């Protein structure tokens, strides 16, 4: 077994209203960052895991996302695995 660091990015689906992102976008505009055209806010989870291989670690992480870490109704996720 090897140690891996799994980074999971969970984002609200683009078609759904993200009120947090919109509030931050407004705040950035108020600070003069007029170049910002959209902000969306999601979650970043960092998991330390052990697995026989990088592929297996990624497959397990996707299973975790499907069951718990992301809501399939409202969120999309991506998984990044690196050797720890």
């Amino acid at each position, binding site marked *: 077994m090897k140690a891996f660091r799994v980074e999971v990015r969970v984002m*609200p689906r683009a*078609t*759904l*209203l993200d*009120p*947090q992102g919109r509030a931050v976008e407004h705040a950035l505009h108020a600070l003069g960052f007029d170049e910002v055209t959209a902000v969306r806010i999601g979650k970043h989870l960092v998991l330390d895991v052990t697995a026989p291989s990088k592929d297996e670690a990624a497959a397990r992480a996707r299973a975790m996302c499907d069951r718990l870490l992301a*809501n399939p*109704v*409202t969120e999309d996720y991506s998984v990044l695995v690196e050797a720890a």
Partner: protein
Amino acid sequence: MRRVAVVVFPGSNCDADTLHAARAAGCEAYVVWHRERDLGQADVVILPGGFSYGDYLRSGAIARFSPVMAAVAEHARAGGQLLGICNGFQILCEAGLLPGALMRNAGLRFLSRPVSVRVEATDTPFTCLYERGEVLELPIAHGDGRYAADPRTAAELEAGGQVVWRYVRDNPNGSTNDIAGICNAGRNVVGIMPHPERRIAPVLGGQDGARLFLSMEAGHATQHAVGVRAVGDRHPGV
């Protein structure tokens, strides 16, 4: 007398009010801790409001994996009556027992105030003593109350008459189609964001929520008793 199980999760905070409301309606209500695996031959199961597991990750996301939830899902699968109020509604959506999801209020603020909702469906175990189109005043208390469903799911809910309550005059959280509560296709599983248990007596500011709990008993009477029981001057609608 219906046996009503009120499930308590770590962070539930409306369990005592819900228990009281069910008892006031004549039910035999009792508490079931979330680590239990047995619902005690419940006729009705209620998941109360609160902040189970601190709303960590997503509201209801962790509670849905509590040991008791296998029995709750089995109860629903067998056609048993199941109600989720506020956080309970969030848990039912996370568990896939109701479609859609509850997301952060469009205005971001936590909202705690009375709202007006219209009863859209009276053919559920929890609304049979209301009249269709009746407008109720019930309090909300939520930060993640925006019911969201994709257009196809929303259309199915509308076509199937599964929207049970709808906000009128003012949609407090930006929910899809002004939805405040829904039921499943089988109509035995119901979720509502406002708090009917907080409006069951004039001393609480109103009693528009009382008939939800009386409906549980009345539906039972219709099914099992010889005569249909009247509550006040109203007769059960089913």
